[in-house]
């Protein structure tokens, strides 16, 4: 590591900083101004914020986004932990399974939604299989305004399929960093498998679990493509309403308020996570 006094590192960083100032900081400031000015310009006002707060769709979108996150994230973390523990037994050919599990990591939400539609649509595989086995006479409709709850669960399933691998990768990396010596010592003391998991694996996995949780929570509040394609606005969500206000209604300033709500939630989650992590470290 070079530590001579030199302007070289600053010069190397300068283009990035300029770029982020122009294409991140400036748009953010502009978005803030959009939030507090009326459409088409004018003096500062809280009218946009009031308009959003008084719109029942906003509250429904917030509720749905939180609900989806609350159902999806625990499922993903649980499944990813099971998968990581399973793969980490390092059976013959386990790397093949790791590659298979990580395939959805590189898939877009658009692809995943269409794959899901392929399975659950009226002409989809589930209906075809059930029809051919004689379990049903007419196709089951999983999508549509009057079957919102089944739409909800298809979305949950799609997101679990698509994004569990993300948590899996983080947890597997965490598991692989745990030194074998701990388990050997535990063997000496006659720990059971379960005791080893509770007293060794879980505490040492905590940092990975935390960063996986933070990341998944941030992404969960930005959920968009899967819901938009599979349910449209049957199930309003924050990002979907941002998109709708922007592209359909062209209410740019209202859309900015929605965007800001997502940003504020993200910042809040990061902040909670960081202080939580800090206090955990101090203990």
């Amino acid at each position, binding site marked *: 590591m070079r*530590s001579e006094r*030199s302007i070289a*590192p*600053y010069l*190397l*960083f300068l*283009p*990035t*900083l300029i*770029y*982020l100032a122009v*294409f*991140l900081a*400036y*748009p*953010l400031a*502009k*978005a803030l101004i*959009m939030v507090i000015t009326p459409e088409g310009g004018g003096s500062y006002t809280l009218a946009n914020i009031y308009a959003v707060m008084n719109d029942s769709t906003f509250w429904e979108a917030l509720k749905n986004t939180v609900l989806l996150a609350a159902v999806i994230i625990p499922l993903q973390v649980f499944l990813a932990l099971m*998968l990581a523990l*399973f793969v980490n037994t390092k*059976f013959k050919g386990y790397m093949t*399974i790791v590659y298979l599990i*990580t*395939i959805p*990591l*590189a*898939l*877009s*939400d*658009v*692809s995943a*939604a*269409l*794959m899901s539609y*392929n399975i659950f649509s009226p002409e989809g*595989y589930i*209906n*075809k*299989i059930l029809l051919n086995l004689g379990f049903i006479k007419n196709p089951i409709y999983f999508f549509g305004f009057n079957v919102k709850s089944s739409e909800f669960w298809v979305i949950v399933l799609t997101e679990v*399929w698509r994004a569990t691998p993300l948590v899996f*990768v983080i947890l*597997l990396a965490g598991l692989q960093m745990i030194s074998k010596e701990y388990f050997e010592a535990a063997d000496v003391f006659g720990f059971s498998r379960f005791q080893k998991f509770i007293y060794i694996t879980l505490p040492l996995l905590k940092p990975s679990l935390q*960063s996986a949780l933070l990341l998944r929570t*941030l992404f969960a509040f*930005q959920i*968009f*493509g899967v819901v*938009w*394609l599979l349910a449209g606005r049957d199930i309003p969500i924050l990002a979907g309403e941002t*998109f709708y206000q*922007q*592209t359909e209604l062209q209410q*740019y300033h209202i*859309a*900015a308020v929605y*965007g800001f709500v*997502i*940003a504020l939630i*993200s910042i809040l989650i990061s902040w909670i996570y960081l202080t939580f992590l800090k206090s955990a470290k101090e203990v």
Partner: protein
Amino acid sequence: MGKEKLKSLLTLFVAGIVSLWFLTPIVFITLSAFATSEDYYNPHYIIPRHYTISHFYKLFFTLGAGNATLISLSVAALTILLSFLLGVPAGYALSRYKFKGKNALKLTILSTRMFPLMILAIPLLIIFMQLGISDTLWGIALAHTTMVLPFVILITSSIFAGVDIAFEEAAMIFGLSRSKAFFKITLPLALPGLAASAIFAFIMSWNEVFVASILTLQNRTLPAQILSTAMDSPDYYKFTAGFIMAVPALVFIFFARRYLISLWGISLK
């Protein structure tokens, strides 16, 4: 001995279930993408019996997916170019220098990821309209660079950190300048990792749908085109489109699989 056998059978069973869970949707969409529409809509065929590439042909040449794919590829290429031009020097600085404010810079880079793209897309549209680059490749590429840049910096810095500085110093002792030492020694050694992170950047840009949909009307990227048209199209086009979206991802997983875990490990820290 019997217990060992039972255990390996159980492992095989679980591995089978896991593989099925992750592969089935991909196999299904591949079948549906190539199935003739008659077979797809025939309730008696679970697995289609006749296959065709005509959906691909129609999507690409008459329904605009060809153009959208070209736009997506160009946007991704521009994004890689921009984010590497900006990010590789910054990553190098992080890995090779000790300097005042380094931690603050690193924290700034990390904290940019707190801001969701949803909040950026809206003002960017207005800024691009003022600059006269709304609804262009450049507009989307600039927005995607903002999204990809922090990842490129963090990934490249750890890739450079993995190339022993001793090589570079040895080259400098033999009279190479620092920049020559970088281009002749460090860069070639870091190349495989950099290539993998370029693929990573490609995937992020290729998959991004929210910003691309907001910033474009005529020049839609493939996911933006799919988002706005798929649900009104016949089912077989949906699956062909979903398959086209998925192919680069599958290729990516295949070629970058050696780097996959470590790359994601770095970028997700």
